[in-house]
């Protein structure tokens, strides 16, 4: 079972997940329409790219956008959640050993305590996000069961991973559970709104181009997000 899951099946999951995300990006850009969006993408490409980068960087920076600065508490939770979510699986020692064995190279590995800390951060941040959804009327009205399902799918590999790591209960069981929940998460990326992991960049780039071209850029106004 373990062999199968981490072997051929893993490759299939990666192919579907990353291939699917690539398709989403391509479809996004193919689906832009200068006339319907009212943005002359091609005619003013350099202004557009400037706007796109401005928009992306402002929002990847926790103090780059006014909206982030206005809500420091949420911003902290949001960034902690996403940093943990990305950094842990990529730089985890165990993952990289597997990578080393399978493809012959690995990425820098992070110390175990850091991995633990980041995993806990993801879980705590996830709880905070859920509580926020319940507590704030303006978020509650937007929240659907689908949103909770997405959070569950996202946090499950971390919960199972930590249980396995601390060797609570049946190690083999939790290790398999970790692999399976991780694969579910990967498979969901292109097909659910978790696709925002790439579409965020697309959407930001598009709006940044809109501002960089039509809504100020051509007038020499650097837009402050």
């Amino acid at each position: 079972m373990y062999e199968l899951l981490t072997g051929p099946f893993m490759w299939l999951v990666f192919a579907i997940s990353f291939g699917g995300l690539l398709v989403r990006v391509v479809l996004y850009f193919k689906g832009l329409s200068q006339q319907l969006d009212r943005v002359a993408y091609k005619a003013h490409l350099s202004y557009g790219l400037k706007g796109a980068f401005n928009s992306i960087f402002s929002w990847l920076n926790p103090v780059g956008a006014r909206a982030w600065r206005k809500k420091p508490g949420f911003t902290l939770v949001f960034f902690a959640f996403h940093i943990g979510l990305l950094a842990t699986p990529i730089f985890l020692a165990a993952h990289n050993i597997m990578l080393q064995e399978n493809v012959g190279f690995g990425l820098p590995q992070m110390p175990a305590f850091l991995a633990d800390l980041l995993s806990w951060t993801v879980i705590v941040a996830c709880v905070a996000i859920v509580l926020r959804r319940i507590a704030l009327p303006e978020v509650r009205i937007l929240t659907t069961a689908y949103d909770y399902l997405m959070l569950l799918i996202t946090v499950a590999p971390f919960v199972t991973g930590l249980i396995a790591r601390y060797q609570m209960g049946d190690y083999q069981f939790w290790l398999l559970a970790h692999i399976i929940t991780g694969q579910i998460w990967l498979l969901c990326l292109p097909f659910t709104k978790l696709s925002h992991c790439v579409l965020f960049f697309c959407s930001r780039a598009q709006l940044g181009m809109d501002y960089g071209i039509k809504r100020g850029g051509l007038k020499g106004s650097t837009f402050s997000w």
Partner: protein
Amino acid sequence: MPQGKLCNRQPINTDEQLKLTLSDKSGKQYYAEMQELDVDTNALWATIQKTMKSRIKTWLEICAHCGMCADSCFLYQVNDCVPEQVPSYKIQSTLGHIVKKKGQVDNEFMRKCMKIAWSQCTCCNRCGMYCPHGIDMGVMFSYLRGLLYSQGFVPWELKIGSGMHRVYRAQMDVTTEDWVETCEWMAEETEEEWPGLTIPVDKQDAEIMYTCNAREPKHYPEDLAEAAVLFHVAGTNWTVPSEGWEQTSLSMFAGDWECCKDNVNHVYDAIERLNPARVTGTECGHAHRATVIEGPYWAGRKDGLPPKPYIHYVEWLAEALREGKLKIDPAKRIKEPVTLQDSCNYVRNQGLKDVTREILSYIVEPGYFVEMAPNKEHNYCCGGGGGFNGIGLYREQRNVALRKKMDQILDTGCKLVIAPCHNCWDAIRDLEEEYEIGIRWSFLKPLIIGMLDIPEGMRVEW
């Protein structure tokens, strides 16, 4: 499929239909008919499939439901932060639902959408700046308005407004003759005080072609006279076209995209015909947005630009002051606290934030200009944007919407507000009428004329 006599899916294309709809006092019959209007669900879905491309589709899909956009919306703020006013909720529960249902929605739902689209969003595009994903509800509401319009679910005044544009190519029944006569009349009147002043119609190859808002010739012809005075004093070689002089677009507020295209082409034709070096419009935000910012796309222009450089009035004015073509008498500068309304339509939508402040630096005594908070591209809508000002059915909601601007103005402590946008000007006037906070408001033209340092002999004092 009962379509009403007044309320139906056909745009108003004839004078007769226009008069008939107008004669229906406050749209009583029109709204009664709307209760019975069938939704052509197949056409609705077909339109969505054809026009909803990756941008809006993705926005609907990836919205994180995080609520970060909530207090970016002034309507959420002034309506006691009710969750129904959260931008994301407003769009998900209208456009989002129609898309989810593949267009299979009923009359009642469409009427609900109409109410939300025209009374809970002014398409001010502010929320788009506060959403981590860059989701702009203003853009989506414009899109939704287009869908609603095509199905006949549009407020009475805007159906008429876009009908006016279709029949008269102006937002009011000002014909070519009326317009040219108004120009002649204003030139004659003004010339007594300003010898040599003319309002040249259809002059070829001028430096500037001037376009305006039909309400000016109709209701405030002095605005045209003021523009003429400033061009005259600045020694500008200018002209107005006999056709294609109206640059506003109520059809944009109505979501009548076909009509938008027709109108803007009319103005562009005038540009091609008269071949001016540049064009400038009046102090109107939505007119500028329609003709200069969005218009090129309606017209299908690849570079997204009008046929000739087309600047907003504030740009022309700042330039004339900068180059000394217009001189301000320092003794006459404003010496009282004064604030400035940043119009969403050319500030947030075109970045013209510094140029207005440059004008103020010439006309306000240092130390008297007080900024609103927030300001520039983060400024709030005046409260009456996107057609909200003109819709009788939603007057009550509009009056509530004005409160944000009221608070912003009160916070500055100023009694004078400069509003270089027709619609903002109207909203601020209504705000004073409704809440009586003791403020005055003004366009730039009359203020500047009152402060000019005029060369000897140019003006005859009576």
